[in-house]
């Protein structure tokens, strides 16, 4: 196997959130999935597409999906691409911009999968820390990396950079600035308009979170047509199957349902944050469907284990910079009451 890159052979691979085998017995607050089902119109669209036509190849361009996204976000079709999860876009943005040995950057902490994707491509990684006031530490006047990922709202902390701050950051990136807006539907603002204003900005979205479609694998990106064309060139030819395409169109077109779910999750999140604060937890303000909460003794592992023994699954990060807290996804009001009750018992 002398032809293989040693780095690939040695790769450890990304460790995603634990998925228990007996899922139904658990309260799963560890992967930021939406507690509400997808829109009934989405389920109807999937059912309607579930027929003998599944024998046929899907539309390789996903035209209907692009049109729906373009109409929703106010861009023309050639500024939009849909993908097999936003993971596919994050992967292909690296492949499109960074060669082997080139550098890409992102914040620490943020979506840890960027590092795995960089490793797959053989790209080098540089990370920057930031403060609770969203100050990025030691960021150069002009960052020379080929691509910089800004998870906004930040995961796992929930902090959200303003549009002005992101615009300023884009001026300080020589390469692409990819604003990963996986959770933007849960936050007050977003950077969609920056795509028009700034040459180097790409906004990515996922339908996994706010649209409750993690199982369908749907993401999208809005950026300049040149970048879209490059992403189209390197993607898997039939990257989206028939059911995913049907689901995407129905989901993007049912904004009423989306806004209602998002409003409920956000209300529950803000209430949950206050309740945690009453119990002595330190909780950062969050623009996502999760909060990052530190118990008074700053021992995340202890609380994680105690919740685990009660079959409540939250996300614990062993990274010393994060081990003082837990990322807790926001479920329904009832689920969060159960969680609070458990946290009260744990103390």
């Amino acid at each position, binding site marked *: 196997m002398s032809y293989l890159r040693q780095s690939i052979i040695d790769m450890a691979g990304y460790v995603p959130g634990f998925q228990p085998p007996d899922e139904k017995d658990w309260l799963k607050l560890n*992967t930021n999935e939406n507690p509400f089902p997808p829109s009934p119109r989405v389920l109807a669209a999937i059912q309607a597409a579930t027929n003998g*036509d599944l*024998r046929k190849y899907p539309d390789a361009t996903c035209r209907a999906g692009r049109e729906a996204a373009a109409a929703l976000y106010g861009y023309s079709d050639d500024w939009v691409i849909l993908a097999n999860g936003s993971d596919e876009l994050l992967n292909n943005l690296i492949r499109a911009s960074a060669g082997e040995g080139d550098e890409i950057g992102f914040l620490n902490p943020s979506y840890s999968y960027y590092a795995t994707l960089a490793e797959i491509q053989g790209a080098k990684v540089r990370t920057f820390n930031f403060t609770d006031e969203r100050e990025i530490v030691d960021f150069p006047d002009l960052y020379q990396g080929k691509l910089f990922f800004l998870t906004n709202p930040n995961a796992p902390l929930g902090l959200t950079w303003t549009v002005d701050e992101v615009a300023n950051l884009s001026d300080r990136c020589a390469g692409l600035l990819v604003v990963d807006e996986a959770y933007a539907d849960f936050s007050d603002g977003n950077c969609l308009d920056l795509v028009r204003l700034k040459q180097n900005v790409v906004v990515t979205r996922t339908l996994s979170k706010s649209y409750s*479609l993690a199982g369908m694998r749907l993401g999208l990106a809005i950026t300049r047509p040149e970048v879209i064309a490059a992403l189209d060139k390197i993607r898997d030819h039939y990257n*989206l199957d028939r*059911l995913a395409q049907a689901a995407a169109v129905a989901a993007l077109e049912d904004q009423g349902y989306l806004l209602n779910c998002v409003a409920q999750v956000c209300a529950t999140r803000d209430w949950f944050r206050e309740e945690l604060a009453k119990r002595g937890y330190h909780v950062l303000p969050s623009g996502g469907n999760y909060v990052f909460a530190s118990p008074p003794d700053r021992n995340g592992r202890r609380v994680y284990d105690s919740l685990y023994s009660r079959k409540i699954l939250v996300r614990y990060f062993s990274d010393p910079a994060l081990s003082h807290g837990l990322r807790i996804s926001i479920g329904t009001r009832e689920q969060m009451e159960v969680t609070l009750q458990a946290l009260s018992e744990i103390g």
Partner: protein
Amino acid sequence: MMAATDLVPRVENAAYVVDLANNENLMGPSPLAIEAIQREAAQVYRYPDIDGTPLLDALAEHYETETEHFMLGNGSNELIDLIARQWARPGTEVIVPSPSFLPYGSASQRAGAKIIRTGLRDWHFDLDAVVDMICEKTSLIILGNPNNPTGTEIDRGTLEHWLATIPEDILVVLDEAYAEYSSDQGLGLALLKQRENLIVLRTFSKAYGLAGLRIGYAIGSPDLIRIVQSQRQQFNVNRLAHTAALAALKDQDYLLRVLGNNVVFKRILYAGLSDLRIAHVPSFTNFILLYCGYALATSEALKTYRLLVKPLERFGLHEFIRVTIGPPETIERLLIALKEIQSEQSWFPVSECPVSVPKQPCSGEKLWRY
């Protein structure tokens, strides 16, 4: 000669378009797969299993081996791409016996390798030519068997003998997208026992009738599978594709019906082609290569009958079309259309009687340019 676009549509008796261009299974997937999707649909808010383990386990059971030998792709197309990214690196050479499925070459080229094409001998890959092209830069050989678009297969003895001559450090990929239709369904798996550095690709797109769902799989040693896995993104196959493929795999009775039908359909088609004296290459798949003199004009003419077929000029087969083998009513429509085109167009040949296999075009440089 009449330009294809001058042909007047004549479709009064053809109520709908039949797509015979993509080698899809016209019977569609197992009804159990459809039901399984309907049951699972409400669960789509959950991420899929990251590796598709229940399906991998079922595949392992089906093939009587271990789960570690399998991985899933978003169609075998994705698997070809993942393999190319790792093995077809700049500075290497990839041998692609041709004509064959176009992504073998395009994925390898995109990954940076130099593509070396070898040709056919009597409609079968010239395996000696492949051996002749091996050099120290050769990292990968991608072989379709049964092959698309020829529809031919290479027998087990020949492949075993050939594989033994390929240096161990070269990865051989055997794409068995049509294996279910072939005369030797266990071929790839048997070869894996012989050779370590081999990956076999299979798909649910063809005989299982699930092209619309994008799911295929690779079989190989756990070490090789781990390397291909490391190239893929997490969650590359969605929840409903997992569900449908698992149900389809478990419904082997339905698969047997599909395969049994294909045998019958083929017999009907062969008889009709013989009557019309249209030369063709005997098929070990669900599609067939027809000699029609002028590929593009024939495919355009067939469109006026609302029949879509694949003209093969991009494969260097300018005189051939590829047609999916369908049920009797589709075959009848095809034969009626071909008969009319044949009688009206001087370029459409009438073969000798009895019909022989068409002469294979030479695969000179002009055809296999890269």
